[in-house]
């Protein structure tokens, strides 16, 4: 299939009318295709061909459990460039119009505000955190390791704890794969050291502050992922040791 996109005007109009349309987001019908008056140009179809997204809907009470599988499925289906993946009109269109994407959106985000999940609020965070589809794609893309046998090993680590995952992505680490790889491998090793019963989110938040200080006077992007892993792991251990003493 070919990726479609809303016109800028159609996007603005749908966003503006989200309150009056909020019940329609729960319906299976493709209501948007008849929303605009005849003769109004509201969408376009690009020349970018992608495979259909086949979402995994396990029915689990904790719907975030399916996010990792769906991130990988979407990333594998939508072989697009980062430039294309920053297009909010495309993501909003797919959320609203494509049957499989709409089914996924209703399943995953029926209790969230449509303006946050079906659209892309703001740059940056709107893409990697809010929009229901683009967040999956970007989490998979930023952790995709072409050199690893399983290209999504790092993706699985990121999704293990989504609060921690957001903490990692809320920094400049999201912009450089070596940094992501180093930090995620350090977290994996640290979890192995402390065991499954001890939470590490608070340790990472303190660790993040120290890494930020370090990165302020260095160019972290110059380091190899092994350097970053070593720095991160040493900092996590230090933070934990300090916390245990208090």
């Amino acid at each position, binding site marked *: 299939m070919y990726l479609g996109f809303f016109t*800028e005007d159609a996007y*603005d*109009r749908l*966003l*503006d009318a989200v309150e009056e349309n909020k019940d329609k987001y729960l319906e299976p019908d493709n209501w948007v295709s008849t929303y*605009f*008056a*005849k*003769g*109004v140009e509201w969408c376009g179809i690009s020349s970018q061909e992608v495979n259909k997204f086949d979402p995994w809907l396990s029915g689990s009470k904790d719907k975030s459990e399916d996010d990792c599988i769906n991130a990988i499925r979407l990333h594998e289906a939508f072989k697009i*460039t*980062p*430039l*294309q*993946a*920053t297009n909010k009109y495309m993501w909003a269109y797919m959320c609203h119009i494509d049957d499989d994407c709409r089914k996924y959106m209703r399943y995953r985000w029926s209790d969230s505000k449509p303006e946050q999940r079906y659209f892309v609020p703001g*740059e*940056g965070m709107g893409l*990697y955190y809010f929009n229901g589809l683009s967040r999956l794609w*970007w989490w998979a893309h*930023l952790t995709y390791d072409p050199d690893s046998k399983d290209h999504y090993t790092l993706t699985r680590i990121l999704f293990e704890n989504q609060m921690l995952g957001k903490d990692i992505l809320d920094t*400049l680490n*999201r*912009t*450089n794969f070596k940094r992501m790889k180093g930090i995620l491998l350090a977290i994996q090793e640290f979890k192995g050291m402390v065991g499954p019963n001890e939470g590490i989110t608070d340790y990472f938040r303190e660790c993040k502050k120290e890494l930020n200080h370090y990165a*302020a*006077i*260095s*160019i*972290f*992007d*110059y*380091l190899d992922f092994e*350097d970053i892993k070593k720095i991160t792991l040493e900092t996590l251990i230090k933070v934990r040791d300090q916390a245990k003493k208090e």
Partner: protein
Amino acid sequence: MSLNIDYPNPVLSIDGDDYNEDCTFDVSFKEEEIVVDEDNIIIPAVCDLQCNGLSDLIKQGKAVIVVLISSSASFYRRAFEFDSAELTKEIKVPKFDVRKNIDFCGYILAKEDMKSFRCDGDFNDLYFKNMSFPVRKADVLAQGQLRTIPIDDSELEKPISSIFSIQRNTHSDAEIESNFDVDEKIVVYLSERLNQLYYDIKDFNNGALHRYLNGIIAYPVLIEGIAKMCDHYRNGSEYSEKRWFKTIDHKLKALGVNLEEEHENHSYTELADKLLGGIAYDGLLSVKNTIDEETNGGEYINTGGVD
């Protein structure tokens, strides 16, 4: 890439005085030499370093020249390393990995941990006489000027109407108000009733009154926008990076008006009318045509009076 950082060791930079006056460092490029091929944006970078101490460290393999390229809109950030013997480098940035702008900044970094970093004769003796500093791998030893390369001007070619975003006003009682700060576009807030009316008229008869609508809504806001641009060129502002600013500027240049140099010479109303393709005339004409059609259809009833 913040330039106002207190480093724990001396850093050679344009604005700093950690080094003697005759020491300088920068990595630059000529915009006209940037080439875009099928896959990459190729930037020919040139390093200018006048500092014996740092030059020696580079030759010894203990320091390295690096250019940091970032494009925050697409989450891209990479460090490109110069060969130790070279002062020029072709930086190839994958063009489908970046969006809007590329930030370009040169650095000299420590290539390894050093216990006693010192540049004899180059450090400013007022601050650092006889002092040496421990530095870690990747620590900044010199920083060049930050430059921004705009890379996507396709948005500037869209119709002028694309810089407006019409939204329902949910935060005040104003019938119509504009906001130039909140987004890349100029946001025009319409009251509930005006918003409904706007879209009813917009969709009427396959957009027959579209030009009239632009005359009512976009025209006055565009005049205000041009006024803000002229004020920017007089006094400075944060607006110049906004898409609406760049688009208006770009389109005025295409009409032969360089607002940066001529902001005192033009009527804002006239410029806005030109940008909207003669909206004053077209807007009224579209209404007249619609009235004529209604009249010819025998449906027109004369109910108007003088104000």
